[in-house]
């Protein structure tokens, strides 16, 4: 068997969108290839323009979306051959998602602890972890700064955005996967907790789990990632060692991105966000953009 945990090979995805008359084809992902080595667990950051296909790429790796062309192989299994529920279950055991919006990933009618117990039970048999599920769940929750006591009996909407996202991360950890695909996992939590969570990612990586970390936060990407992919218009425009790419970006787009980061200090603060005047109320004005 190969040493690749994940092999993304010339993958593209084309959507069509719009009304009957204005139908548009959109190339969300355009010939993307990259690999993750089984022997070297890593944190792979994916950054890039909003709407450039990062989420679509994640969804294909999670087998929630099929590529239009190209091939994805996870741990020796070609995702195109997955047909049965059992296959899907096997895959989910290996790759766990953490989504952009935690309110999406939970059924609002189900209590959170039930979720966690179900996840625990579902993956327990396969991994042969020692039973004591309550302790395991409490442990996973503690790793993300919560406790079972706090979470039990609550429904998803009874937690704040950041708290719910932490539950989603705890749930992903419970399954003991080989790869976690985290799509903007920390966009809803405060800076301090953000650090705790990315530090947790590092611990998780050292346990042998690789993480694909999609983010708009270049500072944490720099802080935590081993490798980075920069995506624009569906294609990888630059990749390599995360620290090198972010410190000395080569591609003009990457340079622009890095220079646009709003630093939390005050030098030139006001000048950095140019005020865009919107014209007088009630008048439509021409589009100034090229």
């Amino acid at each position, binding site marked *: 068997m190969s040493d690749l945990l994940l092999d993304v090979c010339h993958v593209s995805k084309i959507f069509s969108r719009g009304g009957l008359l204005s139908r548009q084809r959109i190339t969300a992902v355009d010939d993307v290839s990259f690999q993750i080595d089984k022997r070297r667990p890593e944190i792979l950051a994916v950054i890039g323009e909003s709407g450039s296909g990062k989420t679509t790429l994640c969804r294909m790796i999670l087998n929630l979306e099929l590529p239009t062309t190209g091939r994805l192989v996870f741990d020796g299994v070609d995702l195109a051959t997955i047909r049965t529920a059992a296959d899907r279950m096997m895959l989910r055991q290996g790759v766990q998602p953490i989504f952009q919006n935690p309110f999406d990933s939970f059924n609002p009618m189900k209590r959170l602890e039930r979720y966690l117990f179900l996840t625990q039970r579902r993956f327990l048999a396969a991994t042969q972890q020692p039973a004591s599920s309550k302790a395991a769940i409490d442990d996973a929750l503690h790793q993300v700064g919560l406790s079972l006591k706090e979470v039990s009996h609550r429904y998803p909407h009874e937690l704040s955005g950041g708290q719910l996202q932490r539950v989603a991360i705890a749930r992903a950890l419970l399954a003991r996967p080989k790869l976690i695909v985290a799509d*903007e996992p920390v966009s809803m939590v405060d800076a301090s907790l953000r650090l705790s969570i990315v530090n947790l990612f590092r611990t998780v990586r050292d346990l042998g789990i690789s993480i694909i970390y999609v983010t708009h936060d270049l500072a944490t990407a*720099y802080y935590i990632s081993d490798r980075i992919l920069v995506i624009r218009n569906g294609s990888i425009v630059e990749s390599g060692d995360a620290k090198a790419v972010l410190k000395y970006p080569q591609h003009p787009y990457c340079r622009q991105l890095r220079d646009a*980061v709003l630093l939390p200090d005050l030098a030139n603060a006001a000048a950095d966000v140019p005020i865009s005047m919107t014209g007088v109320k009630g008048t439509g004005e021409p589009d100034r953009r090229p």
Partner: protein
Amino acid sequence: MHAQAVPDVPSEAVPPMLSVRDLRTYYRANRLGIKREVKAVDGISLTVRRGEIYGLAGESGSGKSTLLNCVAGAIRPPMEIVGGDIDFAFLSGYGGLHRAPPAEVARVRWRHLSYIMQGSMNVLNPLRRLRSVFVDFAYPHVGGTRQQFERQLHAHLARLNLDRSVLSAYPHELSGGMRQRATVALATVCRPDLIIADEPTTALDVLVQKEVLGMIRGIQREMGSSVLLVTHDMGVHAHVSDRLGIMYAGHLVEEAGTAEIFRNPLHPYTKHLISSLPRIGDDAPRCGLGGAPPNLADPPLGCRFHPRCPLAMKVCSGEAPAMLETAPGHRVACFAYNQSGGA
């Protein structure tokens, strides 16, 4: 009955756009005979001046969204406002949108006040194309012909770096950041007096984020609008907020001009928040705040930060510090500063 209370910020000739006085909002549940009360907002007072961007930051779960929901009048059980008043420049005398008659609420929404909710990318109706959403909500408040409205909409979307083709898309056909910009567009196209925004740029790359913030500042400049802006991104606060409030466990613990907060943070939580920010090129290991976040159903006695505070003193676990001014415009709730003089 409310208007005469004294705001804690030096009052000016013009009344503030928004004033919140001693607001207390709890989530009250009674499950299986066990009463639970989550004190999500517990005695917060703040003022948003005319033409000002007031930023709020604070721990995840500290009550920021709860506060914004109260201001926007989005109150659903088990959320209950148990005390305090909220007054607007364009709606006063009721003590809050939740106490105003429906006709007043309808008058004020969109035109005077708009609310960009947290996770706003998910509030769009999944069954309707974006154009219908804009026509339903915004068009009635903008006036003019449909063509004029359409033109105005295109220009507005372009400012947010969105192609006009998104108007014929369903929400699920757009990326998270595109949906987020669409809701920002919806909340700003009528150019309201007060924009309440809860994490409006979290799903955006830094380049697009800049344009969105620039647009919001543009409206603020032009219309003299005020913005109440919640975000975890301290970089955003540094660049756009005029004043900054820091929340911890249902309390406002510090408030000052943005420059002052960054240069001279006083509250130990604020200090931690500012020092915990990683930067590109800085390889020093950093860690989040130790200890468990407070449980708001059973908050720590005294200063709610004391179990995690490096400066905690004996008094801190017994008494709650009041929010007092240490310098003009700089308020902090901490026994390490000036508590004997003010209280």
